[in-house]
């Protein structure tokens, strides 16, 4: 009997392995090849075959500051656990930024030398306890020169006190909560538009499109990020004269929205704005379709900005509107800088896009660009300060008013709030993300009113 069960076991394990193998083989994009473990902690982007560390050009002017032979930037990322998707995307951006700084730009200009940068990172498992000790390890053991943040407000909140204690500049690119910069930290510099301003432009867009669409419904996850996003939407709605006809939250971990959607179908709003992340953003779109809840415009937070969204939903994603800190195709380039009358620094959006595609075989996302931008900004701040002193670099950040491929950067000198950058509004049109707001960088026209779910299922595309 036992022997037979072993046979069955063996047989089924084989089936399992085959299935797993199929999944692995067919889904493995070339760039996901795991980095060789031993070399990862040094942070050098080992997966790029063409990786060459540019020798520092020898400009033999006596350096006024003690310049190390490389500048190390440390951070943790959630590479496992709840936020591992975002963490992995961000890591790709960091690798692209390092490559640009070292190979294209030629290293940080400091003390008359060109110094290459290096990254050092750990996996914080999306856990706050680990964030604390790992950031201290970066500071005290690895002695990194500067810190950038990790992804998501809750983790950033835990990391910031450590940076503060050691007086380390902390470039926050992944915590959108307004509260981070309200704590009185001296060394936290935020590059993102705060949550309260993140999704509100959706309403500006509608005002400009259709003055008769006034009835807004809000459905949002009751987490800290979406709550603040919705507060922003609500206050913008008030200023612009919208009526909020439905406003309900759902707890974290909800995947079945039927109770809310049934109510929503009764209310029949013009505009539906959902506050979500990935899993729930996908689920809520699907269920809106299942329940046949139509509106003139449907905006979904977070999920649609990642290409997976369209891959998962297919035609159902057509016409869905979403906010983003940045999108490939947002050509916030030197022209934009010229218009504002400020300096442009870093790769142009096109340059970044091409480089990223070449390195990773996929389009950059909001997360990749955000971390890349944080590193590039740090380089600029170091150059402005001409010093590795934390205070000096922090002051340099305060003085910076600059445009990068990511958009404008300007902070409130006291709090580190981002006041220059603005989020964009995109829309899925015929399988592509199109930027439809703000008008000066839009890459296409909005498709409005959006198709009904029935039309989408029948194969119509949102082609304006």
């Amino acid at each position, binding site marked *: 009997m036992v022997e037979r069960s072993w046979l069955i076991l063996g047989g089924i394990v084989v089936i399992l392995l085959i299935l797993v193998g199929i999944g692995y083989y067919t889904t493995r994009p070339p760039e996901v090849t795991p980095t060789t473990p031993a070399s990862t902690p040094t942070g050098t982007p080992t997966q790029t075959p063409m990786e060459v560390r540019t020798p520092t050009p020898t400009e033999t002017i006596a350096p006024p500051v003690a310049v190390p032979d490389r500048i190390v930037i440390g951070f943790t990322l959630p590479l496992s656990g709840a936020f591992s998707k975002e963490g992995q995307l961000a890591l790709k951006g960091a690798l692209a930024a390092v490559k640009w700084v070292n190979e294209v730009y030629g290293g940080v200009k400091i003390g008359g030398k060109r110094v290459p940068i290096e990254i050092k990172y750990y996996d914080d498992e999306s856990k706050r306890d*680990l964030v604390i000790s790992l950031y201290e390890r970066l500071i005290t053991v690895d002695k990194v020169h500067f810190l950038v943040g990790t992804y998501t407000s809750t983790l950033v909140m835990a990391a910031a*006190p450590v940076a503060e204690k050691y007086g380390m500049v902390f470039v926050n690119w992944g915590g959108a909560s307004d509260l981070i910069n309200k704590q009185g930290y001296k060394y936290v510099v935020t590059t993102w538009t705060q949550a309260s301003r993140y999704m509100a432009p959706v309403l500006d867009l509608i005002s400009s499109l259709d003055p008769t669409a006034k009835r807004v419904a809000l459905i949002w996850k009751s987490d800290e990020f979406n709550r603040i996003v919705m507060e922003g939407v609500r206050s913008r709605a008030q200023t612009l004269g919208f009526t909020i006809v439905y406003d309900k939250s759902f707890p974290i971990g909800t995947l079945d929205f039927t109770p809310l959607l049934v109510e929503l179908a009764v209310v029949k709003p013009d505009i539906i704005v959902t506050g979500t992340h990935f899993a729930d953003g996908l689920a809520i779109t699907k269920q809106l379709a299942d329940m046949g809840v139509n509106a003139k415009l449907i905006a979904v937070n977070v999920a649609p900005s990642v290409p997976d969204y369209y891959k998962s939903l297919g035609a159902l994603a057509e016409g869905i509107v979403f906010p983003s800190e940045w999108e490939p195709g947002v050509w916030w380039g030197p022209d934009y800088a010229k218009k504002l009358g400020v300096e442009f620094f870093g790769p142009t959006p096109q340059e970044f896009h091409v480089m990223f595609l070449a390195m990773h075989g996929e389009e950059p996302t909001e997360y990749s660009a955000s971390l890349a931008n944080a590193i590039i900004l740090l380089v600029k701040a170091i150059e402005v300060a001409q010093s590795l002193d934390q205070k000096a670099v922090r002051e340099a950040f305060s003085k910076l008013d600059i445009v990068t491929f990511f958009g404008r950067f300007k902070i409130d000198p006291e709090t580190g709030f981002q006041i220059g950058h603005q989020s964009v509004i995109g829309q899925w049109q015929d399988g592509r993300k199109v930027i439809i707001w703000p008008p000066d960088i839009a890459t296409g026209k909005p498709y409005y009113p959006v198709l009904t779910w029935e039309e989408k299922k029948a194969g119509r595309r949102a082609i304006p």
Partner: protein
Amino acid sequence: MTLSRTHILALLTLYAIILGLRILVEVVGPLGPITGQLLTLLAFYIALGQAFNIFLGMTGYVDFGYVAFMALGMYGMASGVVRAYEAGLPGYYGIVFGLIQTITLTSLLALIVGGIALRLRGAYFAIATISVNEGLRYLVEGLDIWEGSRGLIVSGPLIRLFGSEGFSLLATIISDIMVFSVALLALVISIVFLNTRIGYALKAIREDEDAARVMGVNTTMYKVLAFTTSGILGGLLGAAWSFKVASIYPPDAFNILYTIEAIILVMLGGAGTLAGPIVSGTLYGSLKYFLAGILPGFQLLVFAPILVAVIVVAPEGIVGALRAYIPATRRFIA
């Protein structure tokens, strides 16, 4: 087990080593890869294991909602500080008030849950406590208590009350000291329990509760006593940790993963043993910490098999196995 002087001395030595290292690191800076926060993380795990051991290890009851105590501790301390800040009181009022709140909230929870749910046994008790924990979480979110799902942020009030320097001190050294004290307190209480009637009562309960009653053990009282002690210690640990994380969100604070970690810490070392949590806390904490650096993104794939292997090889835990197979160790490992 009856604790001899050697046992207690050995335990205290282990503690002294970790504490000594922590102080040394504070004075001379990190020793190789060993940083202050790593040692504090280890102390955190040790304290968690030691505190939970008083209940789980000694009574054999599984509290699957143990994290609720930590969460209430965090909220107790944080809301105390925020309240003091809003009332314009000096900062240390907030901390004292926070400590009082922590102890009140956790002991209330322990008495209520202990009084009611400890009538249940085995898996039923375990799941009842899960329900308490999740229920509390959704109550906090649903009724918007302590800022509900927005999260209670303490770093701002702390910085304004104590200044940047003061906050740094609180977030690192002072909360480190608190974590170490909780670990030590939990050990001392464990020793006291084991060396008095209480320990014997708890062991009798663990082995056979009905027989214990007939033999004169007031089982309800001792169970609630162990539960409350363990709970308050968990709360104090949470209170200390609240300075570190500086913000508290319900899904994070009531995350069942902490309970599972606490169970792992107790079982990995050996339930009911005193040295168990020290061994498992050190092992568990440093594995996590170092693997996070060696294999970022893949560390759990190494970590989890190690966990499974250890427990399959030594089901009675590391210290339990040592004591069982190497009798000589019984003289000094408790």
